[in-house]
């Protein structure tokens, strides 16, 4: 794999306002790179610098070893094609003629389109499924058809790199999938390098190999979708609370928005709740309580644990310990601090071994400090006691000192909401 495009220390100002500053990255041949970021973060400006439509204040862009700002437009167009966002074609060319314009960069001034050009155009149109309406006027096309024609024209350029500026911004979901599947197919089939500005984070996560998250003209984070699309990064850059789960099929991060209006509505009965769980026993409860607008904390959870993942994706504060490790005293202490800051504590149905026994002690600590403690599901601790009875002892003490056993989620919610009202 060699480097197809390199952006070095790129800075751009518009009317003396900085739009991009110190942008550095490389794109390898055959990579699909997504550029994401809020409105005004410089996404489109970055794209226009990459194809030399705008001249940067500082820095340069290397296209396969040549400085793009020293290349002729024709030379650039021979290896880089652009699919823009707004593609209202307001004139009467036929679809075929419009796609044939993709051959312009490869033709001499008075050179007529030859057999080779016609072959390339036909292939591009077949791949994008627009050969069947080649004689129609571009003005009569629907949005999805038009975008396919533009894509066909870009392919007719036989580019090494294709730049997309929110190519499906105005299309409905069926066309979005169609266009992106097509792009992915070309990426895999022809080893085409793709750089796409995208608004839709889920689309970006699903189709891109790497992502650049721009914030105020600087790269906030660059990496794989898993590394870039996290609750913290999104919260920091977009200033919006989101929940991140996994796409059910592709397993890429999936962003869900949290309507602010709901948070406002439930704020009146919001409670601070600390959850002691693990092994997935607390996941569904955490989600439920989260959507009810509760302020949650959790601990101590091992990194990589199912409950830990849920807490991360919901943006819940939690004390975390290394994977499969004994809970350290230090973490235990942090956990107790969290308990002190909460209104009530919920203990879920998680198995206890030597490693996490301290979590049970934390629950006991809460009861002793007169915090309401609820034992949710799994009343018979013997079934999940792997400590030879120690856990069962503590569990018994918990119950003796007033921890309540609640088996039903809605009952638990009702009790928590009623409390102190």
């Amino acid at each position, binding site marked *: 794999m060699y480097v197809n495009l390199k952006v070095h220390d790129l800075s751009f100002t518009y009317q003396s306002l900085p739009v991009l500053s110190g942008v550095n990255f490389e794109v390898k041949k055959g990579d699909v790179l997504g550029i994401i970021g809020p409105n005004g973060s410089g996404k489109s400006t970055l794209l226009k610098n990459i194809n030399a439509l705008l001249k940067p204040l500082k820095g340069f862009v290397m296209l396969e070893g040549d400085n793009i700002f020293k290349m002729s*437009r*024709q030379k650039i*167009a*021979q290896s880089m094609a652009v699919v823009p966002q707004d593609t209202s074609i307001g004139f009467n060319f036929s679809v075929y003629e419009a796609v044939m*314009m993709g051959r312009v960069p490869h033709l001499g*001034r008075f050179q007529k389109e030859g057999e080779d050009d016609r072959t390339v155009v036909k292939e591009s149109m077949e791949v994008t499924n627009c050969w069947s309406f080649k004689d129609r006027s571009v003005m009569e096309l629907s949005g999805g058809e038009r975008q396919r024609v533009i894509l066909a024209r870009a392919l007719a350029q036989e580019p090494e790199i294709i730049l997309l500026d929110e190519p499906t911004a105005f299309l409905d979901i069926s066309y979005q999938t169609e266009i992106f599947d097509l792009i992915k197919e070309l990426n895999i089939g022809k080893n085409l390098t793709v750089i796409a500005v995208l608004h839709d984070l889920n689309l970006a996560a699903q189709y891109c190999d790497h992502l650049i998250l721009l914030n105020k003209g600087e790269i906030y984070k660059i990496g794989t979708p898993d590394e870039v699309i996290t609750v913290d990064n999104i919260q920091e850059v977009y200033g919006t609370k989101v929940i991140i789960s996994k796409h059910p099929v592709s397993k890429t991060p999936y962003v869900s928005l949290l309507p602010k209006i709901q948070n406002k509505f439930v704020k009146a009965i919001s409670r601070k709740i600390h959850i002691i769980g693990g092994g997935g026993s607390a996941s569904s409860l955490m989600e439920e309580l989260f959507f009810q607008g509760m302020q949650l904390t959790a601990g101590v959870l091992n990194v990589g644990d199912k409950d830990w993942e849920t807490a991360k994706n919901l943006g819940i504060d939690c004390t975390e310990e290394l994977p499969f490790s004994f809970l350290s005293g230090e973490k235990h202490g942090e956990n107790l601090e969290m308990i002190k800051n909460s209104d009530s504590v919920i203990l879920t149905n998680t198995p206890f071994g030597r490693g996490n026994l301290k979590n049970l002690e934390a629950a006991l600590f809460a009861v002793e400090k007169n915090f309401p403690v609820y034992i949710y599901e799994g009343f018979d601790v013997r079934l999940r006691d792997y400590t030879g009875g120690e856990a069962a002892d503590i569990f018994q003490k918990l119950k003796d000192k007033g921890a309540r056993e609640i088996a039903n989620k809605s009952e638990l919610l009702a009790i928590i909401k009623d409390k102190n009202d």
Partner: protein
Amino acid sequence: MSRRPFIILFLIGFALFSMVVTTTIGVADISSIDVFKIIISKIPGLTFLIEQDWPSTWDTIILQMRMPRVVLGFIVGASLSIAGAAFQGLLRNPLADPYTIGVSSGAALGATIAMFLQTSLNMTFQIGIPFFAFLGAIIALAFVYNLARVGNTVPVVTLLLAGVVISSFLSAVISLLMLLAGEHIRGIYFWLVGGLSLRNWSHVLMILPYIIAGSVAIMFWSRDLNVILLGEEEAANLGIEVEKVKKIMLVAASLITGAVVSVSGMIGFVGLIIPHTVRMIVGPDHRILIPTSALFGGIYLIWIDSLARTVMAPVEVPVGIITAFLGAPFFIYLLRSKRKDFRF
């Protein structure tokens, strides 16, 4: 695709036919046959075929008065259509032509100044008028272009607005000069409203070099013009040096406009109607649109000029008045039907 050569050939044939027929129209009653004979008799090598059986004054009427006028009419119509097609393509707006972006007014002012100097100071520089007109066109264009420019690009809307503003201003200056011209006002006025009367071969020769140079440049970059129709950014992405092509096109079209205005005054709407109509027939590809428009525009103008000569005979109506009568409703129609998108 394949019918293009036929359209061109047909139009060339029709243009020749029109020239001969319109040459027969006039106060002196000379038949088509005689016109044909007179023309043939003057072609070197063919003279022996024809026996002269007409009065020799007819020679003068046909060859020195009617022929140059018809040929000039053809050139003017063709040139205005080429310039109009170039401006429309470049600005992606069917309402653009040398008049709407102020270039004609600039040319007219340049020519008016030249004539004003001639008449009031008794100077003579006949050959200088097209040059002055070209200078006026270029200066007006430079004003409009820089007024309309935003950063490195010239958006269509601001260019049209700037054209309107500069046109109005220049028209005011022309009116002022005409007032100052006193008794010579009639001459300037008749030239300005657009006419082809009393034009001879020297006028044809005077403007031909400008028009050939401009037209060749426009044809040379006609494919780029097609790509620019997609949008300036898209054209740049397809390898076109958009700003360079725009400048060349604007200068070439101004050169043509300046030359035309200097001999025929302000003949409006030809550059608007013809390319638009032709586009409906041959499509928007400038490689065919421009030559077809040129032929179409030439034919259109020689027939309109014949109408101008005969409709109120013996009084001649300036051809610019007739083109305005026909063109203004067309402009309004375009404005109404294209209002939605304001594009092709």
